């Protein structure tokens, strides 16, 4: 009996609990799930704000995430953020790395890229690194390269372009050395965001103009498209415009025909003013010192590679994988501003869509593509070296030449140029094939074919007499050049150390004029 009474005494508590639950449910249950609304901001910053630090007060979490770009210690299998000489496969990090292309200096002979070419670090090092790279001539009052090189290095570029107009590009690089703060003016906030409200925006005139020529106005772009366009301001192939075609040395994107290596190669055919027989009117970055071939240099075409790849074609953008949402400071969700390989953030980057897969499996799939791309890239690289050597031998052959010698040599040089262009498109691209596995493999296949055909034509031009000299391992025919720099080129002993280096002019002895932002003499 007492137990029944106890039961009854508990009865009044039950409806009370039920009522409480119902009331709380009614309140919480009324919550509507909002449509995804990008947060809007109103800052006190001016539209012209350039400094990165200025944004840190309003956006401490994003700024902290951005500062994570200082991490230059983590490699992935084929790439990563540790700067090292990309041709050095002998020394361990930080000098070299196990996956290296030993012929980079050979292939760029006669061009500043042969002096120094390192794996790039994060955006926060852009100014420090360009001030210390040997590609810029620091031994002279003339940098040898125009102010164009500041593009995509500093957040002050849009402001300078506004001040000087298109005269900016051909100005002296050294003139701007001391006009930037190494940390506050490196690649940063204002290049992609409107400082007043943090809306995504384009500040690169070259990107804007190239897209307009393709009939695309970024101001009409969706947010999804903008999440790729802001990156496409810099992660693209570009060239310094020939002055016969517009403002001298202006950064220009070769996209008028499309985004494939073939499209861009065709584009360059009438964008220059060279008088070299067989190449009249072609745009030429430099003439290869050994084979005297008018060359093109490709620059990190991530945007062009991604755009018709499996992810790009499906509308998955750069930011989706490279700027995954992360929870910081307890619970707050922000886009990561640490731009690096998504192989370091597979759970956040890949599993966002590939929810049914395990991180380890996804990593293996990426490496599956990269391993095969890397193997073919090395072969394409060696084929290119053989093409230059064949053209060199044929051009110096003094025996009886083929009746069509001149036209065969023009074709041999054209295919040497083309083969190296197709190799470089993949070599300079950041994903080792992942951004577009099939297009990249096709590009490398073509590179190998063009270079092999160049060898065949050169051998034919010399009436097959140089054939034996081109047989065997390329490393025995043309050893990789491991050491080369502006300083070394001041030494005759260095130029005598390799048969290809003999084609370079001896530079007069000189000491550095600039060390970073310090003028030494």
């Amino acid at each position: 009996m007492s137990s029944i009474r106890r039961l009854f005494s508990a009865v009044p508590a039950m409806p009370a609990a039920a009522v409480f639950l119902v009331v709380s449910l009614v309140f919480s249950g009324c919550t509507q799930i909002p449509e995804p609304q990008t947060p809007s901001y109103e800052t006190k910053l001016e539209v012209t704000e350039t400094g990165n630090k200025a944004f840190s007060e309003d956006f401490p979490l994003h700024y902290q995430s951005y500062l994570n770009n200082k991490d230059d210690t983590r490699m992935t299998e084929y790439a990563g953020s540790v700067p090292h000489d990309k041709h050095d496969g002998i020394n361990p990090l930080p000098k070299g790395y196990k996956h290296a292309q030993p012929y980079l200096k050979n292939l760029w002979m006669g061009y500043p890229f042969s002096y120094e070419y390192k794996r790039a670090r994060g955006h926060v090092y852009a100014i420090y690194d360009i001030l210390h790279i040997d590609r810029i001539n620091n031994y002279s009052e003339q940098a040898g390269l125009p102010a164009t090189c500041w593009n995509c290095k500093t957040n002050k570029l849009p402001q300078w372009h506004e001040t000087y107009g298109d005269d900016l590009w051909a100005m002296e690089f050294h003139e701007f050395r001391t006009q930037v703060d190494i940390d506050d003016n490196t690649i940063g906030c204002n290049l992609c965001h409107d400082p007043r409200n943090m809306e995504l925006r384009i500040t690169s005139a070259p990107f804007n103009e190239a897209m307009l020529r393709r009939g695309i106005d970024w101001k009409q772009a969706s947010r999804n498209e903008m999440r790729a366009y802001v990156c496409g301001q810099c992660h693209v192939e570009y060239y310094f415009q020939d002055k016969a075609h517009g403002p001298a040395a202006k950064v220009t994107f070769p996209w008028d025909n499309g985004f494939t290596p073939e499209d861009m190669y065709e584009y360059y055919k009438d964008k220059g003013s060279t008088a070299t027989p067989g190449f009249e009117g072609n745009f030429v970055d430099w003439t290869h010192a050994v084979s005297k071939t008018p060359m093109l240099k490709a620059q990190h075409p991530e945007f062009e590679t991604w755009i018709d790849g499996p992810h790009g074609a499906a509308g998955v953008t750069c930011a989706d994988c490279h700027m995954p949402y992360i929870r910081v400071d307890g619970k707050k969700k922000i886009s990561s501003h640490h731009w690096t390989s998504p192989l370091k953030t597979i759970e956040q980057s890949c599993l966002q869509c590939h929810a049914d897969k395990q991180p380890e499996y996804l990593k293996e799939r990426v490496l599956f593509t990269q391993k095969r791309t890397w193997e073919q890239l090395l072969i394409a690289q060696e084929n290119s070296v053989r093409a230059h050597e064949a053209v060199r031998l044929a051009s110096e052959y003094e025996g009886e030449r083929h009746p069509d010698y001149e036209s065969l040599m023009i074709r041999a040089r054209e295919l040497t140029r083309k083969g190296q262009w197709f190799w470089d498109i993949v070599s300079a691209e950041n994903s080792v094939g992942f951004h577009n596995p099939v297009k990249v493999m096709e590009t490398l296949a073509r590179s190998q074919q063009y270079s092999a055909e160049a060898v065949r034509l050169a051998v034919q031009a010399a009436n097959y007499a140089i054939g034996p000299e081109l047989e065997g391992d390329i490393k025995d025919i043309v050893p990789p050049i491991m050491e080369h720099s502006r300083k070394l080129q001041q030494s005759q002993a260095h130029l005598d150390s390799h048969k290809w280096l003999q084609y370079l002019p001896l530079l007069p002895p000189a000491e550095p004029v600039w060390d970073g932002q310090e003028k030494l003499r």
Partner: protein
Amino acid sequence: MPFNNKWFLVSIALALLIITYAGAGFSMRATDKPPFCGSCHVMNEVVRTQQRSIHAKLTCNECHAPQDSLVSKMIFKTRAGMRDIYVNTLGTVPDVIQAEPATKEVVNQNCKHCHLMTVLNIDMESKAYCTDCHRQVPHFKKLPIDQRRVANE
């Protein structure tokens, strides 16, 4: 006194029981539904994608809790709810929320439960989960990220 004291007590008890029963039933149903689950901001995305999917008219727990008996549903739901409350308030919410192995099992059972006639004469051992092939079903993961996730949620 017009009412027998005993009958008065019994009718009060009966009324309370009905209120409790109805309240519990209402609560049970309400806490199965997307608006309730989505009232925690970390669940905004999954509700948003569910609302655009072919299963938009179902409640969350028609897939995410066992349907074989009320007891197993209660146990599973209570445990999942407690864990979610703990993680959301005191723990660390993962950057990307994924279903746990136990949930994946339950969801898979529920696919087969509703689509019984479809799977009746199919060998269901070919793949571990229905969604291994029907990849568009779970929360519309193929929707562009900018249409389902935003900062601050």
